[in-house]
């Protein structure tokens, strides 16, 4: 505990001397307060409401005769925005239109299901961020983890639960190797992990696309479409609360991963070294920490967690076999989740839940109110935009600009508390 509390100490002294401006920006983003995260979400929802109103044909028509009948405009405004956010709620939390409680709560279960990969991916990327590694390779690591898990699942059909356990382990190892390669390149050659991970995304995506249309590789036998065979039922992740809800045991694994992340970063000596390297690699090296091996292990663990996203997509989420797009953009959305959660375990978990809810509600918003799914994406993007610019939120809400000294002092105990 004393070590944890003392950790920011040397960093404060070193910070002004830190030559890397990029590192400073990361630190600013991760160091923002919970209040700013919440306000960013509020601003995102408000801007979303404005966009819904502006793009709604009913509002457009009614505003044409605003002075003749102003009430009509406000009624149309209420209809479009109220209807949209009511659909968002009913699609994400509880649907009042269903006959009983069990079917009414199904949207919440769907939210948990959609949040699962975002939490896992967010934790994986957050781990990298804490070590000062900007891992943008979520897509590639997801694809490797999922493809390996799927391949093991149908190639070694063992009875339940052994087939499943073997496939999950294979997926974790796949993601860990995909991440470890990046760590190795950075540690040994000094290659920028940002560039390497982005490029590996392309390499992996096209390589898996190739395997998916090569008979005998990942392509299902007897088909000409680029799709894999379906993993056997014995290797599928079972539903958590029965077939009527979409949430699976992967959600429990996501909770376990969150606890593991907390333990690793706050209680283990490896986590202490990780954080030391993240705060200041030069100081960490002086203190006798092997920075290079921390980069390698950091990317291995980061890739392993992201590999679980692939496992979730292939063995829990997708019905039947998978195509080359099974990562579904989660590798990138997880960056958002990690940033919104300030790379803290609980923060990432809650951010994952929020984005799961936005996704789940977005489907109903689109189906029931004809609102383009883009609006939901705009809301998410605005949230990130505001989180990346804490001063903007402070100005918007007239929050006091914290002086350097009190902010530092306030930040240190909070970091301990959050962990």
């Amino acid at each position: 505990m004393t070590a944890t509390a003392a950790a920011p100490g040397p960093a404060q002294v070193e910070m002004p001397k830190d030559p890397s401006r990029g590192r400073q920006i990361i630190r600013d983003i991760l160091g923002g307060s919970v209040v700013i995260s919440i306000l960013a979400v509020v601003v995102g929802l408000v801007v979303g409401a404005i966009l819904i109103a502006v793009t709604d044909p009913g509002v457009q028509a009614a505003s044409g005769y605003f002075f003749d009948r102003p009430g009509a405009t406000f009624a149309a405004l209420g209809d479009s925005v109220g209807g949209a956010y009511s659909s968002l709620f009913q699609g994400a939390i509880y649907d009042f239109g269903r006959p009983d409680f069990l079917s009414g709560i199904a949207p919440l279960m769907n939210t948990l299901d959609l949040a699962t990969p975002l939490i896992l991916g967010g934790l994986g990327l957050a781990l990298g961020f804490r070590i000062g590694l900007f891992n943008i390779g979520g897509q590639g690591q997801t694809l490797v983890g999922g493809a390996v898990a799927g391949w093991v699942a149908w190639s070694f059909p063992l009875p339940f639960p052994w087939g499943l356990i073997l496939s999950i382990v294979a997926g974790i190892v796949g993601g860990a190797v995909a991440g470890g390669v990046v760590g190795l390149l950075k540690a040994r050659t000094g290659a920028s992990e940002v560039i390497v991970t982005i490029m590996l995304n392309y390499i992996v995506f096209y390589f898996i696309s190739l395997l998916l249309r090569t008979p005998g590789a990942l392509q299902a036998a007897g088909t000409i479409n680029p799709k894999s065979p379906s993993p056997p039922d014995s290797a599928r992740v079972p539903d958590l609360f029965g077939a009527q809800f979409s949430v699976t045991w992967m959600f429990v694994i996501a909770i376990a991963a969150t606890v593991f992340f907390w333990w690793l970063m706050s209680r283990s000596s490896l986590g202490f070294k990780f954080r030391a390297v993240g705060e200041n690699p030069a100081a960490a090296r002086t203190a006798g920490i092997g920075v290079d091996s921390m980069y390698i292990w950091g990317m291995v663990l980061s890739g392993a967690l992201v590999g679980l996203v692939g496992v979730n997509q292939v063995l829990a989420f997708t019905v039947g076999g998978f195509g080359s797009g099974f990562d579904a953009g989660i590798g990138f959305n997880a960056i958002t989740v990690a940033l919104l959660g300030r790379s803290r375990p609980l923060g990432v978990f809650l951010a994952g839940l929020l984005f799961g809810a936005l996704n789940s509600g977005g489907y109903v918003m689109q189906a029931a109110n004809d609102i383009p799914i883009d609006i939901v994406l705009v809301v998410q993007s605005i949230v990130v935009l505001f989180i990346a610019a804490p001063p903007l939120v402070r100005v918007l809400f007239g929050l006091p600009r914290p002086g350097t000294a009190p902010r530092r002092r306030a930040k240190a105990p909070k970091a301990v508390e959050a962990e």
Partner: protein
Amino acid sequence: MRITARRAALPVLAAIASTALLAGCSQAPSTSSTSSATQTTASNFLPCMISDSGGFNDHSFNELGYNGLVQAAKDLGVSQKSAQSKTDADYANNINAMLNQNCNLIITVGFLLADATKAAAQKNPKTDFAIIDDNSIDLPNVRPIVFDTAEAAFLGGYAAASYSKTGVVGTYGGMQIPTVTIYMDGFYDGVQYYNQQKGKNVQVVGWNEKTQKGSFTGGFDNNTAALTTAQGVLNQNVDVVMPVGGPIYQAAASAIKSSGKAVALIGVDADVYYTDSSVQNILLTSVEKGIQQATEAVIKDSAAGKFSKTPYVGTLKNDGVGIAPFHNFAGKVDPNLQSELDTIKAGIIAGSITVATPSAPKS
């Protein structure tokens, strides 16, 4: 700094506000007209549609399917619902959202949605489903809508070979999937048929039917990869090019315009002459796939209670596929070309000319 910025913003804001004021001055519609609008809903039949990740404004098969949905709903006097998918993860969720809207018929666009459609159809036997471009589901409540586009692309290949002066024609695809390569197979066969009939040796670049290998952009986005692929094909002395897959023809159009060469474009899926006026001057013809008509027909069958699981297969015979007019190129092609194409079309329908492709739909 801040003050000057604010001062500068003031007139702009004033201008916006006054425009908004003027815009709000028109007359409100009388209330009687709004009530009559609601009466047009004659039946409770609700057709719904879910796009694949291309979205409904892809100038291609999603858009054609959507047009079919809108037209059928208009003709039947019913409302319709639609949802766009952004990623593969959206398919099952969008179908579920539609099921909760109590849709009677759910049309999914593209083979990517096959697994999600199959799972939903098994769970909801009382809802009708139809899936465009996939023939893998065999369930009593799922109707596949597929097209033998190789037949129409054969005509396109023949026309391209006839028009070409350099003796080289090209094609490239978005992704190497059957619904794309079936066009390229037909195109290739059409060129070979022309060579055989006329004793010429017109080359095809970008696709080889025998090895099933060729040029692909790697996706259905009009991006740099599409432009590079288009330029790669154009650099091989090609003067007719057929890009297959959604909006990637736009990359070919810009590559043609920047090269300054007289290269003609062949559109696919829709008659691109009408869907995109910017390429009218370089468009030789289009290989059409009657997705709109097929969708309309399937919706109307379902509304009339005549839904069946028998696949709808679009062919030259039932006008489910075809070749568009030459429009601006009518004076530039061989005067006998149209009659030759008509003869070939009749030959394909009668079976005297066979268009063999491994990607053909099984009916």
